[in-house]
């Protein structure tokens, strides 16, 4: 697979092993600019491992990952982040010692230059940067309707809101590629629908490219343009969301074959 101009993320024959376990076997995927790409598969099929390979936590042993044509495998997670990949985590990973606002401001980190001297000379040095970035943060807060929770401490707000704060933090980085790891995990139907709407709103407003891991098939069909289905670290189907989900191989991987029921 070669990286065409409109491919943001290209993974080419990725292999990742943990000891004797091969978690990803020659997985290839290309995410086009502006699309929402779904990553689907049963538990332990390698979805999160693929995301961790892309974001640099578990660099692949073989294969090549490029972002806008630049090779990113082998780089440290913070370097990949500064190249324009933002992500959220399946178990919310917010900073508990901070308010909602400060958490979202953290998302602007790659645009800021933290420096003790700048902090010391705040009125002459750091204030301009803080206020400029605050403006961008407030835009995202408006988009995701987080204003009422802005000054709350982040561990006193409900889980649905925490997930939205994490999404806001990722959006503030103005990423080329947004990676969402099960943004609906542990949510009820109403919260799920809210989240879907926020993701669609954000994608429309900011022209995002999204790679999303999701288990809820209603969400997958509502959101994703194309999906990749993994099972045991291997691709079993790839293509437009609705058709791919109807693929007998996918149904088999998720639910099992009729004779297994016996």
């Amino acid at each position, binding site marked *: 697979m070669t990286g065409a101009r409109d491919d943001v993320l290209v993974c080419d024959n990725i292999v990742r092993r943990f000891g004797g376990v091969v978690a990803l076997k020659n997985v290839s995927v290309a995410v086009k600019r502006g699309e929402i790409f779904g990553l689907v598969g049963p538990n332990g099929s390698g979805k999160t491992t693929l995301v961790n390979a892309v974001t640099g936590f578990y660099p692949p042993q073989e294969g090549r990952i490029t972002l806008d044509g630049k090779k990113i495998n082998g780089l440290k997670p913070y370097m990949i982040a500064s190249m324009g990949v933002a992500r959220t985590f399946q178990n919310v990973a917010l900073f508990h010692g901070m308010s909602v606002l400060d958490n979202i401001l953290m998302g602007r980190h790659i645009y800021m230059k933290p*420096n003790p001297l700048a902090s010391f000379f705040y009125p002459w040095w750091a204030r301009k940067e803080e206020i400029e970035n605050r403006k961008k943060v407030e835009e995202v807060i408006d988009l995701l309707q987080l204003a009422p929770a802005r000054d709350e401490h982040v561990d006193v707000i409900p889980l649905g809101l925490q997930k939205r704060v994490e999404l806001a933090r990722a959006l503030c980085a103005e990423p080329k590629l947004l990676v969402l790891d099960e943004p609906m995990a542990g949510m009820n139907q109403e919260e799920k629908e809210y989240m879907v709407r926020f993701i669609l709103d954000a994608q429309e407003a900011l022209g995002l490219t999204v790679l999303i891991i999701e288990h809820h098939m209603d969400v997958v069909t509502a959101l994703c343009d194309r999906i990749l289905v993994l099972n045991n670290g291997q691709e079993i189907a790839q293509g437009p969301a609705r058709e791919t989900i109807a693929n007998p191989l996918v149904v088999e991987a998720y639910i099992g074959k009729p004779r297994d029921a016996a």
Partner: protein
Amino acid sequence: MFYRLSGTFHTNYQADRKLWKIPADRWLVLTVFALAVLAPFLVSPLYLGSYVLPWIIWSAAALSLTLLMGMAGQLHFGFAAVMAIGAYSSIHLVRAGVPFEIALLLSGIIAAVIGAVFGAAALRVKGLYLVMATLAMQYLVDWVVVNVPWISGGAHATLRTPAVSFLFMDISSLASRYWLALAWAALITVFYLNVKRTSFGRSLVAIRDKDFAAAVIGVDPFKTKLMAFFTSSFLGGVSGAILAFCYYRAVTPEQFGFNVSIQLVAMVLVGGLGSVIGSYLGAGFVLLAPIFLTNLIAGLAASGWVPVSQNFLSHLPLVIYGAMIIGFLLFEPLGLAKIYDNIRKYFLVWPFRHARS
């Protein structure tokens, strides 16, 4: 009630990020600062020299440590060694003819470089292992100071600080030494508060709370931790120099031993990790509570209230003091700062019961 949150609105981001957002807080800070500046005229020289002055200097040291331990979450059990480096460097620099102002700055930088070198070596480990690594720094620096005569002047020698002046003000009278220490404490306080509201402070807290989530938004964990070690050691080094010149005026290696490191950690913990007011309260508690208790019990014994032996009497304050620290950590793990905060929050929303922020 004069001390309330409702009725205070901010219309721009600059006002929203003020150091003291509520007018009552600003007045409180101004009043306390004015009283501190006027202390030499309000307090007898005995009290100023033996209680207020050390309290201010140790508060500055506790603030330097809490930047690393409270904000960045990196435990450091060798902070007295950092202060020793600052103290000895400043004395030798002044003796070599460097002006005191520049010597203070340079001693801070020397302490920061050495502290950051040990930090870099220690940063591959976390938690309890980091405690051990920083303990190693304490003992290594102690050993070097004691055993290199060029630094300490010999194993049991005392180094007198030379007479100096700061910005044309002669630092020899008690009041001038106190004002210099106060200026340094005020400077660190403003610095710490500014760090808290800027990206530097946020990245430190991010590393402390969830290092992988910090990495995924572009924070370089190693560089950030190293910056925390560097900054904190710089402040600690200058605080050590201030301690030597303004309070001790004659330095021996024992003044910066392991027990002093533990005392600093106690100040930070009792006061409340990462809190400015906590550093002042914690330093005050750790320094003054034993003295206060000793005086109290001696007074009670003299008036016949506690009929006990002299031997028991001399240890009783330490027992009560230890029990108080355990009590704090059990019942208010967030320290004295949290107690202050609870009281403040109560008045902030009085007569209602729930604060919005």
